[in-house]
């Protein structure tokens, strides 16, 4: 190859690289704008199935029938723009097919933190909408369109109509849907939500937490496991009013098999700090729910 050809090849390569680069940046800028997710620290952190059963008020098998938007949770926040903090929520309606703990109603509503708060700045501005045609009905009072499952807590994944789950639940907040007050349940922890697959095996929804040890287990076996396991409920702690989960007694083989929630260093000896983790673990007590706005 002579130097002239080499030069042309190099120039062609450079041009291609520039176009590829500009294309990538353009794609990122125009087509890859993310909806930021939220990160949560869950109030209840069961380390074992027995603790999950002890902390849950109900364990149900249920099918998703509807996902709808609830009115934002609004916290007074003097000093924040608008003087309030808004958290968007969804309400998932589920038809109960069975219960492994508790006596749930035939239809339950499950609370979920998700969606776009109504005041979000990049939502369409109704003031810029064209004039209302004669005889048309008024526009909806809520300017933000409901797009289900936008902005999720990263490990509280979306629900789809028709899906079946085994879920560990506690009483959730009273919320409003279009002004109507609704009582809800809330998920104990994302690691205690299991999708029932078409082949009747369960899949934990998240890759961490205690759920992974049940991946692929048959639904009937899983039901039996939950029903038969003796629950470990919180007990009073040393501080006044404090509740704790009792110290975990490690059974032979429990640590290497990961029968408690994942450890930092799988397959290695017990890491530093692990003993403390297996001691009594504080469980929050619950206060007074805020008044809905």
């Amino acid at each position, binding site marked *: 190859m002579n130097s002239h050809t080499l030069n042309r090849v190099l120039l062609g390569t450079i041009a291609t690289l520039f176009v590829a680069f500009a294309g990538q940046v353009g794609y990122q800028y125009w087509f890859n704008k993310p909806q930021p997710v939220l990160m949560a620290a869950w109030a209840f952190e069961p380390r074992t199935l027995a603790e999950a059963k002890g902390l849950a008020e109900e364990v149900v098998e249920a099918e998703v029938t509807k996902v709808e938007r609830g009115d934002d949770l609004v916290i007074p926040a003097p000093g924040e723009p608008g003087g309030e903090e808004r958290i968007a929520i969804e309400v998932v309606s589920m038809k109960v097919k069975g219960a492994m703990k508790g006596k749930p109603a035939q239809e339950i509503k499950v609370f979920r933190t998700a969606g776009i708060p109504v005041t979000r700045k990049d939502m369409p501005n109704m003031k810029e909408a064209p004039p209302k045609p004669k005889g048309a009905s008024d526009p909806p009072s809520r300017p933000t369109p409901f797009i289900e499952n936008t902005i999720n807590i990263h490990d509280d994944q979306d629900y789809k109509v028709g899906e079946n789950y085994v879920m560990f639940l506690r009483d959730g907040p009273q919320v409003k849907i279009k002004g109507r007050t609704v009582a809800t349940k809330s998920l104990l922890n994302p690691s205690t939500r299991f999708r029932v697959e078409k082949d009747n095996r369960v899949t934990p929804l998240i890759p961490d937490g205690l759920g992974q040890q049940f991946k692929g287990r048959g639904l009937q076996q899983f039901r039996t496991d939950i029903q038969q396991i003796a629950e470990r409920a919180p007990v009073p702690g040393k501080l006044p009013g404090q509740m704790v989960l009792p110290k975990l007694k490690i059974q032979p083989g429990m640590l290497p098999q990961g029968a408690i929630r*994942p450890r930092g260093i799988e397959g290695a000896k017990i890491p530093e700090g692990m003993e403390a*983790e297996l001691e009594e673990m504080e469980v929050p007590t619950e206060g007074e*729910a805020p008044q809905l706005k």
Partner: protein
Amino acid sequence: MKGKILTGFLAVIALGLLALNVQVGNAHQWGNWHWDKKTIRMWVWGSHQNESRAAIKDWNDKTKLTLPLWSSHTDVSVFGANSGKTGWAGLASIKEYEFDWWHKWCWCRIKHAHAQYNSYYNYSSANVQGVQCQEVGHTFGLDHSNTGGCMAKGYYSPSSNFTNSHNWNDINAMY
């Protein structure tokens, strides 16, 4: 000769730009979220301010970040407030962001973030600090991590209510 120098120069520039465009994510990083500065101002309000301040001080003292406390709305709002029985005791959210033209080439530069402790749930002071330690860590762009410290709290064992050397290294690698 001039042409060759120019060609070589352009080639280096093009390769450099491509290299910059590779969005390398740290294993313990929350997506590509990051600030474009090392001094991030923190505004503490609401309940449990002592625990929130202690969590901020932990990150401030142990990492490259400088986290001055501010008396009004600024880069990060750190607060305790009652959101009811939501199931979560802490929530971190990125409220505003912009396109990063000079580093990662994505909509991932944080402009404003919130770290909330849900005071509906009553914990001991140490655990409140632990929750806020994790939420504040998220607002710098950290994910949960399996290497202990407060970024493992609730997700992996062992964990604690304080930052640890792995958390410091994760931050120092980012900033």
